[in-house]
């Protein structure tokens, strides 16, 4: 167990180091949520009676939707595709590195990225007079479960559909962007017509947004968001299972390649 943990930290460190070197992607991951937060913060300022409340309302959706959607969902896809293209995956398969340690390492790396993005989003929110009213620990737990859900799905898309970088973006955009729109990331789901609103109830991004918004804006406790957390927990477990299965299948194909 200790070996798996150490090995996973090594994998995470390597992914983060590569990310630091690949500045363009890092800048994009910082710039995109920053611009989206500023844009929607200003758009909703009149409706919420000032920049502070507007940023407080907007920040959770931007962090979970705009920021982590791209980093924690597309990130693992890029990692897996990169390993396959560079043939390092085959090298790792020949090493004593356990598959679980590799999987966990990818999760750690993207949770760290999510934490950094959270710092940027809430740094800006505080700078514009907004804030985070509820428990930071509960907020962090929602971010963690959301990151795990995204990474599991990222593994699934990366392992199942993407053999090269070109393949990687299509499925994520095709499935993910409608989920963002239906998840209340950029505007309230109250605006949706009835049949679309019903769909949001099975959309994990909706539950992420609602849970974090309730904690960040209204300062509610764990009981008030238990339904959202339950859904998210189940979804995280399902996405991990799905990702693991797709990853194992991919390893089988990679061995035979």
């Amino acid at each position, binding site marked *: 167990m200790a070996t798996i943990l150490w090995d996973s930290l*090594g994998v995470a460190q390597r992914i983060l180091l*590569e990310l630091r070197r690949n500045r363009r992607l890092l800048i994009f991951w910082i710039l995109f949520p920053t611009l989206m937060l500023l844009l929607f913060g200003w758009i909703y300022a009149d409706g919420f009676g000032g920049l502070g409340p507007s940023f407080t309302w907007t920040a959770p959706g931007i962090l979970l939707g705009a920021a982590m959607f791209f980093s924690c969902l597309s990130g693992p896809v890029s990692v897996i595709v990169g390993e396959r293209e560079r043939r390092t995956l085959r090298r790792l398969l020949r090493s004593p590195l356990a598959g679980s340690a590799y999987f966990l390492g990818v999760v750690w790396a993207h949770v760290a990225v999510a934490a950094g993005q959270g710092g940027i989003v809430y740094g800006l929110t505080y700078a514009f007079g907004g804030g985070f009213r509820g428990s930071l620990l509960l907020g962090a737990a929602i971010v963690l479960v959301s990151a795990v859900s995204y990474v599991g799905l990222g593994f699934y898309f990366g392992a199942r559909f993407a053999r090269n970088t070109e393949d990687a973006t299509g499925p994520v955009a095709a499935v993910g962007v409608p989920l963002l729109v239906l998840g209340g990331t950029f505007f309230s789901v109250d605006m949706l017509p009835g049949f679309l609103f019903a769909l949001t109830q099975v959309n994990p991004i909706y539950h992420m947004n609602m849970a974090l918004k309730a904690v960040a804006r209204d300062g509610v406790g764990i009981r008030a968001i238990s339904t959202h957390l339950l859904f998210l927990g189940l979804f995280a477990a399902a996405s991990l299972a799905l990702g693991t299965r797709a990853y194992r299948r991919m390893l089988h194909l990679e061995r035979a390649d």
Partner: protein
Amino acid sequence: MTMITLRGLEMSFGSRRVLRGLYLTVGEGEVYGLLGNNGAGKSTAINILTGLLQADAGEALVAGGPLTPATRTWTGVAPQEIALYPHLTCRENLLFFAGVYHLRGSARRRRVDDVIRIMELGDHASTPVAALSGGWQRRLNLAVAIVHGPRVLILDEPTAGLDIQTRHNLWASIRRFAREGTSVLLTTHMLDEAEILCDRVGILHAGRIVREGTVDGLWQSVPAAELAEVEAEDDEALLARARSLRIPTRRYGGQLTLLLPSPTTLAALVQRLDGVAVRSLRLRPIGLTQVFLEATRPEEVRLEDGVEVG
């Protein structure tokens, strides 16, 4: 002690049989060269040995046992393709892979420093892999394979595509590992590499070893003491003359070659070929090339009287 054993390996991909009962062993500190044409099954054998593929039949053993996570920690593999992280420096790549092989803390750093020194990577230790030339990348590819101090080293065409100087430097490194007790199994289709590096050589053809032994010993398998490469005005006349002299003849890549039963001189040979218009004639010693060509000749051109015209 036998460090690598391949026993009766069989492998098919669909209807294509790639390995048909492959047997070989590599002893401690021995360099074994697995030679073969493209598609002969060299990489398949390596992939089975390193756990990437499961053989249809037979077994692959490292130090007498099957490959386990424990034996993987002292087995190093340098794949044919460069498999490195291009955004990381040489040192960072080595540190990562040393960690993958369970080296930790100061032991990991010390070992990486040692490998950088051994592989003469010092000037490039802080250079990202993407900025290195192909030769340096291949050198690092090999360095990664030895970063954890393996007792068994498996090299799949380790010097493919390298210039002569870099190849010689890598050969020197591989010889050093063997002297220090590492068992090396390398695949190559460069015969000079096998001649210079290997204690023993196995020629893989059609999925099985068709010749095996020391390089010197393998030369004995060619039925000749010396070779004469001949370019004649009329090949048929030359073949007829050779047949009458009972000198076996081969056509190696279009070049008619006489397999002389005893050493001779050019003058003596010209005299024996009296009546044949010869454009050029060259005597050459037997090398691994002839051993290889003899061993991998298609069955249909092996004629009973030793004279091959196909």
